């Protein structure tokens, strides 16, 4: 009797330790964002203001959107190495066709989303490694971007510019937009039944197939969603920069992967967190912000700051996960 109680108590405490580790793990992305913000506040208190955030997070929305695009692909156990050049391509379409002949621009962007879905289908049907296929596609998008805009230029449509120029009261627009994106994707992917199916296609594809769901369809939907958010990312980027060039999104591939992983996503098993990914993307956006230049971090080492943050957060997560096991 006593031993049974002791076993139960031990099980209870082990359970609680696991729950605590899970909680820490869930809050890690937010914690790392708070740490980066703390460092910024310490180095330059004036940055923590409406104006400062507006500046630091100027380019956060496109990074958040590209990160969400990557999140959908990673949910299905794949990886998209073409999202950066896709954003460049969308940027070039936005600054040329969408501005001059809107119907052509809309058709091109819709077509691009269909191409993404087709890539998902190709990867599934031919059982191909997504890394290599999307790396090949990155050349295709880059080539199309160069063809559309051989020299930097173009102009963002007026309506697009006015959206991003909108001044929110109290809270800077990028923060509101990021929160809205996080909420929408969280509801769609984590709270709806088809969202669970989509994640399940990464978690246990065999079980899902046996239950009668089409893995081809889930893969196509995930890639189409990635394409859609890639389009939104490119458009929002151009709304801020107002003109485009063929390499404008080249850094986004790596930033987007880093954002998803920072936010608690895992490569295998469909374990992703939209809210975490948005927080991760904001952390990356801050770390890559031009404001770092004013903080005695030479521009040469800004890319390294991204890598260092990634390594530190993953190290912290490894420590926590070890307790979770």
């Amino acid at each position, binding site marked *: 009797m006593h031993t049974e109680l002791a076993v139960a108590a031990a099980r209870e405490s082990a359970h609680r330790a696991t729950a605590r580790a899970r909680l820490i793990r869930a809050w890690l992305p937010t914690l790392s964002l708070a740490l980066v913000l703390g460092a910024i506040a310490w180095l330059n208190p004036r940055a923590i203001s409406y104006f400062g955030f507006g500046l630091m997070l100027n380019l956060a929305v496109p990074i958040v959107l590209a990160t969400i695009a990557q999140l959908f692909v990673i949910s299905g156990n794949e990886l998209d190495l073409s999202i950066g050049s896709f954003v460049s391509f969308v940027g070039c379409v936005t600054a040329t066709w969408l501005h001059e002949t809107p119907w052509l621009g809309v058709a091109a962007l819709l077509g691009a989303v269909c191409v993404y879905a087709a890539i998902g289908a190709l990867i599934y049907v031919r059982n*191909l490694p997504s890394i290599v296929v999307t790396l*090949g596609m990155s050349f295709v998008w880059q*080539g199309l971007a160069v063809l559309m805009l051989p020299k930097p230029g173009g102009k963002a449509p007026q309506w697009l510019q006015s959206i991003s120029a909108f001044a929110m009261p109290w809270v800077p627009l990028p923060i509101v937009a990021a929160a809205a994106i996080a909420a929408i994707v969280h509801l769609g992917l984590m709270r709806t039944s088809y969202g669970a199916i989509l994640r399940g296609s990464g978690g246990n594809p065999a079980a899902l197939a046996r239950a009668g769901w089409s893995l081809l369809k889930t893969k196509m939907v995930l890639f189409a969603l990635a394409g859609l958010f890639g389009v939104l990312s490119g458009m929002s980027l151009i709304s801020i920069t107002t003109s485009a060039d063929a390499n404008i999104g080249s850094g986004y591939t790596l930033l987007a992967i*880093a954002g998803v992983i920072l936010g608690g996503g895992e490569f295998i098993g469909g374990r992703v967190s939209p809210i975490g990914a948005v927080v991760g993307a904001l952390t990356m956006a801050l770390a890559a912000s031009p404001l770092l230049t004013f903080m005695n971090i030479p521009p040469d*080492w800004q890319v390294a700051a991204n890598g*260092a943050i990634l*390594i530190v957060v993953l190290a912290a997560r490894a420590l926590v996960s070890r307790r979770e096991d």
Partner: protein
Amino acid sequence: MVRSRALLAKPWLWSFLGAFAVWLATIAFTGGRGGGGMLSAALALAQFTVIVGIGQMFVITLGPGNVDLSLPANIGLASAVAMKVMGGSDSMIVAGLLAALACGTAIGAANYALIRALRIPPIIATLSASFIIQSADISYGRGLQIKPPPGFADFTNLQLFGIPILAILTAAISVVAAIALHRMAFGRSVLAIGQNSRAAWLAGTPVERTRALTYTLSGALGGIDGALLAGYFRGANVDIGNEYLLASLAVVVIGGTSVAGGRANVPGLWGAALFLVLLLTMLNTFGVSAGVRLLVTGLVIVAVIAVAGDQGAHR
């Protein structure tokens, strides 16, 4: 029928056929002129891809999720280190090469340390490392006069009966790699881990030591490649390794190595590298614009992989 099935079972043969077809198309366009020169130029460029391709092949053979994304940054930093150590003087060539080798080896070992210590997927480990290496390269290479010593530049451009001397050396490295892969404990261990890492571990294969060696090898080959590239193109710069991420992955996959791990192929690397280089040569000969060149390269890679594809990969 039997023969065609045997051919299909060797997908790397296609890469040589593809390379040959592209070469034929190009000399048909030029009316038969410059076919030989084109081949030796293609060999010279292809061997740079083969060197990093060998490292990437061993890494990918370890199984799903294993990939070295730090190669471009590694090549960039090693090229700067080599040129700085050589300092434009012929007497320092060997020291510079050794420095680049040491730099690449250290990067490879650091990659593995990150994978092992943080228990994170190699993709993220090598990606994070590449951010830091890239910054180190930008910072280190700033304001340097990064030109190779004349002796080194001449050596990397040297030809023996129309065959670039570097291609001969890389062929020798390839032979060693093939022997290591199929006949030595190291290569057999890599293959065993790629087929089933748990079974390999139960059978007493030193799994972690093999993985450590594999990532270090990939780093070391990247370092050597960086030094040679800087010699061949007469100067180091930060972007010198950029194209070698896609190239190294593409030659491994097109060359018939299984992305699911456990099956590798060395000769295929040469066929695929020649195919990619000759494809670019052909597009240049046709005089297409940069955009079309990128577009066609991407489409051809996707198409080739889609056709050669399905290797029974279990992701």
